[in-house]
């Protein structure tokens, strides 16, 4: 992101100075500014920036018309709207005009930089997520079992999972959505699930429904904690988790999702717990 060439489009000298200050503090290179349609065309052609911050209300024109003008010159230039106006209709119009992100004024420095990072650093962000996600989810599962069931997990070696595999009995699937989308999957035998539930609830016998509710919530907590750690690492990830879907049946096969996922088996006193996590490179999500 450092050194990214940016043009600021705004009709307020204060806003331009304020945005310029933020960008320069973070090492971006502000190469020009504009406040009218003509000035936008001129400065974009002249400076060929990688990124444009765009105000919505401009004299004699608007941010959407100016965004179209930018993309007519070069469709690869990313445009982030920075405007005090923000409602569903205007955000939809911005999306339709190929705006990459929308930040509301008054500008929060962290929000603006997270939006820029999300738009400009896709490759680096994906690499960072791929490198670190399994370690973070492992830590989160370990912590969950440790705090809730008062027990430990020893992990076997991690492996990349490209083929389908058979469920041991109970599968919990949690969809994850943010800058990149993916899933966390936990698979374990019914016997292991019963024993974990017994340890968490401190009673020996639990119905299948109770076990499913406890393991579902455990998975929910593990995925939520792990995603919070990832979001703290870099706000640009913006990961959120969907509620768990829990399945058990006869000879259930879990297929490969078409992108790399990493699996690891955790050995506990209750039996083996399989953890499988992966994210798709895919299209950039609007956020």
């Amino acid at each position, binding site marked *: 992101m450092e050194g990214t060439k940016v043009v600021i489009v705004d009709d307020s000298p204060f806003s331009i100075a304020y945005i310029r200050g933020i960008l320069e503090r973070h090492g971006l290179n502000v190469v020009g500014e504009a406040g009218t349609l003509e000035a936008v065309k001129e400065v974009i052609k002249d400076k060929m920036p990688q990124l444009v911050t765009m105000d919505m209300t401009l004299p004699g024109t608007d941010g959407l018309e100016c965004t179209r003008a930018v993309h007519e010159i070069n469709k690869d230039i990313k445009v982030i709207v920075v405007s005090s106006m923000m409602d569903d209709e205007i955000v939809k119009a911005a999306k339709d005009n190929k705006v990459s992100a929308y930040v509301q004024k008054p500008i929060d420095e962290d929000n603006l930089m997270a939006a820029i990072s999300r738009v400009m650093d896709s490759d680096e962000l994906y690499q960072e997520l791929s490198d670190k996600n399994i370690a973070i989810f492992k830590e989160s599962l370990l912590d969950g079992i440790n705090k809730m069931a008062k027990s430990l997990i020893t992990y076997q070696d991690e492996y990349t999972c490209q083929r389908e595999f058979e469920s041991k009995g109970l599968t919990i699937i949690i*969809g*994850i*959505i943010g800058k990149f*989308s993916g899933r966390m999957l936990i698979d374990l035998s019914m016997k292991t699930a019963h024993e974990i539930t017994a340890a968490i609830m401190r009673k020996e016998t639990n119905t299948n429904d109770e076990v499913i509710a406890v393991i579902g919530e455990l998975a929910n907590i593990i995925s939520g904690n792990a995603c919070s750690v990832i979001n703290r690492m870099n706000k640009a990830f913006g990961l959120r988790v*969907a509620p768990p879907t829990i399945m058990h049946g006869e*000879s259930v*096969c879990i*297929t490969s999702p078409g992108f790399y996922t990493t699996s690891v088996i955790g050995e506990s006193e209750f039996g083996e717990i399989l953890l499988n996590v992966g994210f798709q490179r895919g299209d950039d999500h609007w956020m």
Partner: protein
Amino acid sequence: MPQLGFEDIQKEGISLKDDNLVSTGVIMTVGIVGEVKGNVVYCLSLEDAKAIASTMMMGMPVEEFDEMAQSAVSELANMLTANAATFFSEMGITVDISTPTLIYGSNVSIKMSANQVLCVKVSANGIPFETNIAING
């Protein structure tokens, strides 16, 4: 669905179920987050999944439910849910969807995360499948 080679789409029925479903065959779950949260679970038999994959691949015969066929029906789940997400956003409700996870097996009990599940039975070119929608406000 017409872009995918299905001309004849019929809604066969809508019903409310509780959050425990049982299904045999192929099951795909897609997570939803945003202003509403939940999951959409698509259920269909193995034979019907192969028929759908075949239609999506321009009528190519599909003997085995292999990776290519799995990828085709996963893509269908993805596109149908993404379309629904677009309709939501046109109503002013922003939602995002996760990647689909596909499993298959017999007598699979599925627990979804809502007290009630809306089940829409659809047939596409005569191939039936079930769309189960569990949304929390």
